[in-house]
């Protein structure tokens, strides 16, 4: 009985919560949120405890007629990831919005809707349904980016929306080609039915382009920095940790399904090359920023580049594939936790200093040690120093590159690490400078620093669990493609 429930609830519960917090008065919304978050935690735990892969047929109508939700271990990992990010961000938001109830009222329902969208994307096995979840996530993100209503935020949100709309149409066009030739929408049936050829390859390229645009892969990244850097801080964290991961995870799922059928070697190399350029260019731009949140936002452009590197090695039947798959998951988690932590910590520091410039960080190491510590720990993961998740991701990428006999990638990965270190420490060194004037410091709730630290610790020490995670994910990729459903 519970099995019938669990997967749909992972989407429907946050949707219901969104409706509830939207209609309820402020004083009820807060406790209601904690009840909801607790419910989500229970739900996700129950899902993970369920060891076997889960498949739920919605409405009792099996594919190809209906839609199925699938919780393999990849999806379960991502559900836990989302839960952890949300736990920290919701805590943080209570402190952050304490002075601005109107923004809090706008934030809450959209945040819950976004949670539903993330879970829906991770669980869905239906191409069209994935399009709907992508739109759900995209429009929610636009609304969140516009939350403050400032003209700059509006401009950023509009840019974001236009990118999302373009991506939506490209995705639909790709879908039209695939559905037109096969008449099915379930990913596993599509993979079985699709015939290699111009139409299917073009369809796949369209889907990949759309998803790369939504994930902000260079050169389709220009919408990202203003939207992420200009949003209110809890939103920046959600956008960078989760929203770009939604489109990326969909891309990864498509890749796992279609790489065995279509010849994607060239496309994979192409994506990896774009990723490499993104790593370098994004880092260089981050180095040039004068404002902390923009620095963190441009760092996302670079980190997204790393997400796309494993496609060079994700070829079915090669020894590098399993390692590359691990690398993708680790990079998703590592960047998610680290970047959210970084934004949250930046938010604390900016609020304390009252301004957005890097020089506002002066003296922060002694005034806001927790936030600086969180920033540094998150930075360690972005750089890829052990035992962070970012390190494990890079370690796996290095291994995959050498297993595939493509050693030049090693050079790129190491250069990327050093560039990252350069911009991370460029920010952190300000914190060690003596404070110019103590009197202008504003109080910040300690809760905010702690929630940033929670995520930073996950990012910086999560790498210790790499072997465990890799063993847990192994059945999803071992023997790929035969092992796929």
């Amino acid at each position: 009985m519970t099995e019938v429930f669990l997967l749909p609830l992972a989407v429907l519960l946050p949707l219901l919560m969104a409706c509830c917090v939207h209609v309820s008065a402020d004083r009820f919304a807060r406790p209601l949120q904690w009840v909801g978050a607790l419910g989500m935690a229970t739900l996700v735990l129950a899902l993970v405890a369920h060891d076997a892969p889960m498949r739920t047929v919605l409405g009792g109508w099996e594919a190809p007629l209906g839609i199925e939700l699938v919780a393999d271990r990849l999806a379960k990992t991502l559900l836990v990831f989302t839960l952890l990010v949300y736990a920290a961000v919701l805590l943080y938001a209570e402190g952050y919005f304490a002075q601005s109830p109107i923004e809090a009222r706008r934030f809450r329902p959209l945040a819950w809707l976004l949670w539903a969208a993330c879970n829906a994307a991770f669980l869905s096995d239906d191409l069209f349904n994935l399009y709907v979840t992508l739109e759900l996530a995209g429009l929610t993100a636009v609304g969140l980016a516009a939350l403050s209503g400032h003209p700059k935020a509006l401009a950023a949100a509009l840019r974001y929306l236009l990118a999302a709309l373009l991506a939506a149409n490209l995705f639909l066009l790709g879908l039209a080609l695939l559905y037109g030739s096969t008449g099915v929408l379930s990913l596993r049936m599509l993979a079985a039915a699709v015939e290699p050829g111009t139409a299917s390859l073009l369809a796949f390229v369209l889907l990949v382009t759309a998803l790369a645009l939504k994930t902000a892969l260079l050169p389709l990244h220009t919408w990202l920095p203003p939207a992420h850097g200009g949003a209110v801080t809890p939103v920046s964290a959600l956008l960078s940790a989760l929203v770009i991961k939604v489109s990326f995870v969909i891309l990864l799922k498509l890749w796992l399904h279609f790489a065995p059928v279509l010849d994607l070697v060239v496309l994979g190399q192409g994506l990896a090359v774009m990723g490499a350029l993104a790593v370098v260019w994004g880092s260089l731009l981050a180095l040039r920023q004068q404002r902390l949140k923009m620095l963190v936002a441009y760092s996302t452009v670079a980190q997204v580049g790393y997400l796309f590197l494993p496609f060079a090695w994700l070829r079915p039947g090669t020894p590098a594939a399993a390692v590359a798959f691990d690398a993708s998951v680790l990079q998703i988690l590592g960047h998610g936790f680290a970047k959210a932590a970084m934004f949250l910590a930046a938010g604390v520091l900016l609020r304390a200093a009252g301004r957005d410039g890097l020089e506002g960080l002066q003296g922060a190491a002694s005034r806001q040690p927790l936030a600086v510590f969180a920033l540094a720990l998150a930075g360690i993961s972005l750089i890829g120093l052990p035992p962070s998740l970012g390190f494990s991701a890079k370690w796996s990428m290095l291994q995959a590159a050498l297993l595939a006999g493509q050693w030049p990638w090693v050079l790129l990965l190491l250069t990327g690490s050093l560039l990252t270190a350069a911009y991370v420490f460029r920010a952190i060194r300000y914190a060690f400078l003596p404070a110019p004037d103590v009197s202008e410091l504003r109080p910040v709730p300690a809760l905010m620093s702690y929630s940033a630290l929670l995520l930073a610790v996950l990012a910086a020490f999560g790498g210790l669990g790499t072997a465990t995670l890799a063993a847990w994910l192994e059945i999803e990729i071992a023997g790929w493609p035969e092992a796929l459903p």
Partner: protein
Amino acid sequence: MSAIAMDAATLWWVLGTALTFLGLGVMLAAPALLRKLLAFNVMGSGVFLVLLALRPRGPDGVADPIAQALVLTGIVIAIASTALGLMLARRYHLATGRDSLPEDAPEGTDD
């Protein structure tokens, strides 16, 4: 045109393709927000035409019901996106008096 043996479906997906790339081009090139949103809708219509026209019709001449449902859902999502876009654009216009986004500043420079 008569030289090409063209059945009815082909006509519609050719039109769909034309509308798609017409919309896409304008969406990329036009600066004005309103025109971008118009172009998005034209492009969307083109994609929907391709989606439906590719599917063989049923024996009674009725289009594939699943494709119809997909297009219906797509239309609703498109209108929701358009409405949101218009609302943001109007708000932006009210605040700044502009009907288009500022030209992209050289990358990486802070505004």
